[in-house]
């Protein structure tokens, strides 16, 4: 089976003033279809940078990112927009719900972009809102929703066009413990129901319980990749060390 995402020797450097900072120093990674993968690492380790590369939100300085064996650097602006719209769902730490739109309008927007009629989009949007447990809050504006509810809207929005991949950047970073756990459970359930590949950058250890594989990033490189079976041991060790 071919991998749904393949990262090949990717480096990325930023210019901070006159200093050049290398955020990624050559990363190779293969992600399988339907997998729930967590990218773990301390802040500044380059995990968000890697995450942005995978999502086609940023271009690598060198190396290649393949999605379904297609080099995304080869895609033109339209194809890239199509990919973002139809095949990848994004979830962010700061929710990034469009503030001026209601919950339902936020969810229907990507479906409108995908060419769906307004009625069909509204119908599907309501169904998605029910699936994330917010069926009765469709006409609420983001500022009338709690953080957890906003993140639920974001998850529903990410699923709007039935994407193949969901990218979640610190989805629980701005949420309290219980809400964070609810969001993680929701993500896991939806990914299993739909067979979506979930890739999340995080430093939330709660995420480990549901992950099939965990990629540890340290200092711009992959430190180690662990399967779920190996995990409990290393978490124990971290618990002792910290």
């Amino acid at each position, binding site marked *: 089976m071919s991998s*749904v995402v393949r990262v090949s020797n990717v480096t990325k450097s930023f210019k901070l003033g006159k200093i050049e900072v290398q955020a990624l120093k050559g990363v190779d990674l293969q992600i399988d*279809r339907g997998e729930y993968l967590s990218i773990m690492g301390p802040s500044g380790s380059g995990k968000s940078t890697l995450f*942005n590369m995978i*999502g086609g*939100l*940023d271009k690598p300085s060198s190396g290649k990112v393949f*999605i*379904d064996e*297609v080099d995304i650097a080869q895609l033109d*602006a*339209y*194809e890239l*927009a*199509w*990919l*973002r*719209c*139809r*095949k990848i769902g*994004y979830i*962010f730490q*700061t929710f*990034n*719900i*469009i*503030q*001026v*739109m209601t919950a339902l309008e936020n969810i229907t*927007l*990507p479906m*409108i*972009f*995908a*060419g769906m009629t*307004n009625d069909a989009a509204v119908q599907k949007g309501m169904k998605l809102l029910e699936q994330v447990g917010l069926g009765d809050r469709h006409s609420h504006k983001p500022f009338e929703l709690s953080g957890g509810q906003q993140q639920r809207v974001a998850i529903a*929005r990410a699923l709007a066009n*039935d*994407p*193949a*991949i969901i990218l979640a950047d610190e989805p629980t970073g701005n949420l309290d413990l219980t809400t964070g756990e609810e969001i993680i459970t929701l993500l896991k359930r939806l990914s299993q129901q*739909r*067979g*979506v590949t979930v890739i999340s950058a995080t430093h939330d250890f709660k995420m480990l319980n549901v992950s099939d594989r965990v990629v540890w990033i340290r200092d711009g490189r992959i430190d180690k990749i662990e399967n779920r079976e190996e995990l409990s041991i290393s978490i124990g060790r971290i618990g002792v060390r910290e």
Partner: protein
Amino acid sequence: MKEGIFQDLPNKSNRVQRLVVLPFGKSVEIAYKSILVRFFRSLITTLSLVLAVSFLSFTDVSNDVANGMLASGSAELRQTLVRAGYDLGPEATNVASSPKQRWIILLSLLVCAVGIVNAQLMAVTERFREIGTMKCLGALDRFVLRLFMLEAGMQGLAGSAAGALVGAVFALIGGWIRFGGAAVRQVTLTEVMASMAAATGIGLGLSLLGVLYPALVAARMQPVEAMRVEP
């Protein structure tokens, strides 16, 4: 999603359907709601335009009034105009705006344009995150550009129309006070309407021109850059 991700990507050679779309009606709806939500801010952005356009409209309609008085052929009205300070030759059949008037109008429009660019740059900066999010959802550069142009267009049209109306009303009242009711009755509605339409058009043009640069900056932004901005 069992099959390949790209299998339903329309082929380049026969790409009849567009990859991502934003119907025009929907764009108008989004732009309109966006203005309503930020009503106070939109009002301030539009206010300088209202003032500049009303000044333009005031000057034009005042000239219309004077022209109407001249066109009536009445010697008495002509005398009134000369007494009021209009520089009329014995053969003059119409009043044109003086160079000084034109200069002041030009200046006021220029100041207004700078004000619009300034206000729109700030408005766009405030919305970087929203723009980044939209791009992550698949919005093309031109969707963003279109939304901002539509918003500016609506603001420009409403602001200019209001300004033109205010200017015209004040010009007519001013004419009535200076020259009396008989003088104001000489001006035709068509002329006033034409002056107001011209002023509205210029105002709309200024509004669109002012948003062009900020909107281009916003539209060309990479999603990541846009999201990196702190809210």
